[in-house]
């Protein structure tokens, strides 16, 4: 049985979990967006460098 009732410690436990979720969300979003942005940029420049037919 899962226990989500933190009793008198509710204002300590849930904020700690919320901050952890926020930190993971930032790490995931920042890493993926960074990778996508630079992959797109490198691909675009590679295409621009190739001689046009």
């Amino acid at each position: 049985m899962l226990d989500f009732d933190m009793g008198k410690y509710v204002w300590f436990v849930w904020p700690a979990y919320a901050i952890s979720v926020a930190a993971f969300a930032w790490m995931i979003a920042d890493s993926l967006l960074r990778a996508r942005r630079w992959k797109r940029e490198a691909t675009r420049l590679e295409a621009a460098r190739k001689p046009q037919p």
Partner: protein
Amino acid sequence: MVFAFLANPDRFMAFSRWAAPMFGVLAAGLIGVGLWLGFAAPEDYQQGDTVRMMFIHVPAAWLSMFVYICLGVASFLSLIFRHALADAAAKAAAPLGAAFTALALVTGSLWGKPMWGTWWVWDARLTSVLVLFLFYLGYIALRAAMDDETKGGRAAAILALVGVINLPIVKFSVDWWNSLHQGASVFRADGPAMTADYLIPLLLMGLGYMAAFGSLWLVRIRAEIWRRRAVILALKLADA
């Protein structure tokens, strides 16, 4: 052997293309099961429900040190062999390490208030972890401050290696000095000092955090490789 294999950027890109999502799925599974077991564990007889903070605080603290070891090794390889991929790996690790260290500090503070009666004390463990956080920030700031990327990378690598001295201080601070912080309770010579109810979810969460770092680290190294390719291509286009 592994370093030599992955030192080639093309081989690294081929490897990380499948390894990054694989680690990500592994992390989600481990953290999911770890949280399930963590919230199914009984309240601690002394700490009550605050014991559930252990499942996010302790793995974050482990990762804060593990990531710094990765940063140190990558910086060492970058300085000695001047290998661009090692430099990219070091650069990619620093923001993740800073995030895990910040998490350890903040969740520790939220755990400290109900258990110790204070958000913060300047004792050896807390202060040395704060210093670790400042080393991460210093590394990031130093790289960003220099226009010449190569010089910035080398200066930051030296700073990272200086910061390695802090790791044993963090680890053994609770043994060397009087501290409010408890001593080691998992990795001890005479075995873990907690029951399986807490130990199993804690280890699963630790492995989950480790897998999450592995996945995100690979993604960020890939991003850095693409960025460098883009910079080189832009310069070539400008010259043409």
